[in-house]
């Protein structure tokens, strides 16, 4: 239980940190920021890799989680990079 309270604390602090970090973003970067943040939410891949394997059902669930999180990670970062490379100042 103590562990959860500690991690809950980390969760809250991270949210506040995030709010502070992103509060003033120029509107040019709204889409790249959203897309970049979307790629980060692919961190679920780490969670998927931590799953345990016990039986066929668990294997299927783990495979699905890894597959979809990977799509999110690769697709998210590449699309963000493509988008950012278009933003130019002349």
């Amino acid at each position, binding site marked *: 239980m103590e562990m959860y309270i500690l*991690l*809950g604390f*980390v*969760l809250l602090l*991270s*949210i*506040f*940190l*995030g709010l502070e*970090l*992103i*509060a*003033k*973003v120029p509107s*040019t*970067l*709204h*889409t*790249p*920021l*959203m*897309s*970049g*943040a*979307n790629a980060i*939410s*692919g*961190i*679920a*891949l*780490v*969670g998927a*890799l*931590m*799953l345990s*394997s016990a039986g066929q*059902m*668990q*294997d299927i*669930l783990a495979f*699905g989680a*890894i*597959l*979809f*999180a*990977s*799509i*999110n*990670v*690769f*697709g998210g*970062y*590449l699309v963000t*990079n*493509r988008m950012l*490379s*278009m*933003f*130019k*100042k002349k």
Partner: protein
Amino acid sequence: MENLANIQVIQNIVYIISSVMFILGIKMLGKEATAVKGNYLSALAMFSAVGITCLSLEIDTKIILAGVLLGGLIGSLIALKVKMTAIPEMVALFNGFGGLATFLIAWSQFNEPSNSMFQHVLIMLTIYIGGITFSGSLIAYGKLSEKLKLGKGSMITNVFISFFYLSMPALIYVIGEPSISQFIPQVPSYFLIFLGITLIAGIGFVMPIGGGDMPVVISLLNSLSGIAAAFAGLLLLNNVLIVAGSLVGASGLILTIIMAKAMNRTITNILFVGYASSNQSSSSEEQGEVKPITSDDAYLILESASSVLVVPGYGMAVAQAQHVVREMGELLEENGTEVKYGIHPVAGRMPGHMNVLLAEANVSYDLLAEPDDVNPSMDTIDVAIVIGANDVVNPSATEEEGSPIYGMPIIEVHNAKTVFVLKRSMSSGFAGVQNPLFFRENTRMLFGDAKESIGQIVAEFKD
């Protein structure tokens, strides 16, 4: 045994380093000069976090390799092949997959034999948020790619909406299930039913929301996928999941608030009410003659203008007119005209949609201005060209108190000396409100496809 403990220490240290890189990465992503580096840094953080997790795996390596390679391939192909105009629906789709991954993780945890009460609650919450993110994002994808036409008011939509409301008591039931099953008979396979209800509820959550409100919905779904990942982190006791997930949750939340503010509406109003259908706006006193103009005349006026403001909207995206708009802008500049682009935060279908389109067409980003930058000096602008935008330039928002969009910050093009409105027909915008701008003394309507109309002006300039 000692070896295993060592591995855990190393993993946790790398997780902390990754978290710091994520934090710096997202911070750098918020500034034009450092955005590209920020994205690389965050990708590096992802790579280290994933790599170090592979030191202790329980799942069969074959499954992991197959999943990562296949997922990486699919994701990369979509990301590299997609047209830039299809970006809104791509972001929605990737976001949905992230939600699905957390949904499956929590499902897998539910199958573990010994869950504490607290874990049980977390599992259900993660499933709920992840599931709604997944199916909601799929619906957003369908709406943005215009494959899904169903909206508010249809019978099918109402069925899905009722599932959304049903999902809340269902969530409360499954959370309390271990304790209340002693008192009331257990619903057989309640968990699977809950999974189904959650997925259908996500459909009901997004389906009734209209196209113009999509920037808010996409930001919110983005935020939810982060929160789901953070909850999964609590469940698995993994700090990098918690930090990265919370950052995404926070950034999505900020965008949601910015979008809602730009419409002068509350988030609840956008999600659950929608625009009230307004019948009284037809009584607006400014109805009258519209004054059409041809591209030839438009060219003559533009040629002698010394300052021009281009205000794009969703119509520019539909007509794919961004390249020809850039061309016109360059020709005007060669002619000695000062050209700026006025971008409203909610123009288009996602946050920053217009900025991406214009960037794709090679418009320098320092020419793009926000409403607050252009409104004070609007009366010095010779010509404001409105391309496929409607509600974001509707003067009712500042002048007509009864209007449904009253109070919404707009780009006040009606104060410019001349306004060109490029439009296909006289239909009203997303909010269903008639736009008095079209009837103003200084407004000229240039009817037709925006790409063709501007193409003609460009051709005249070249002659």
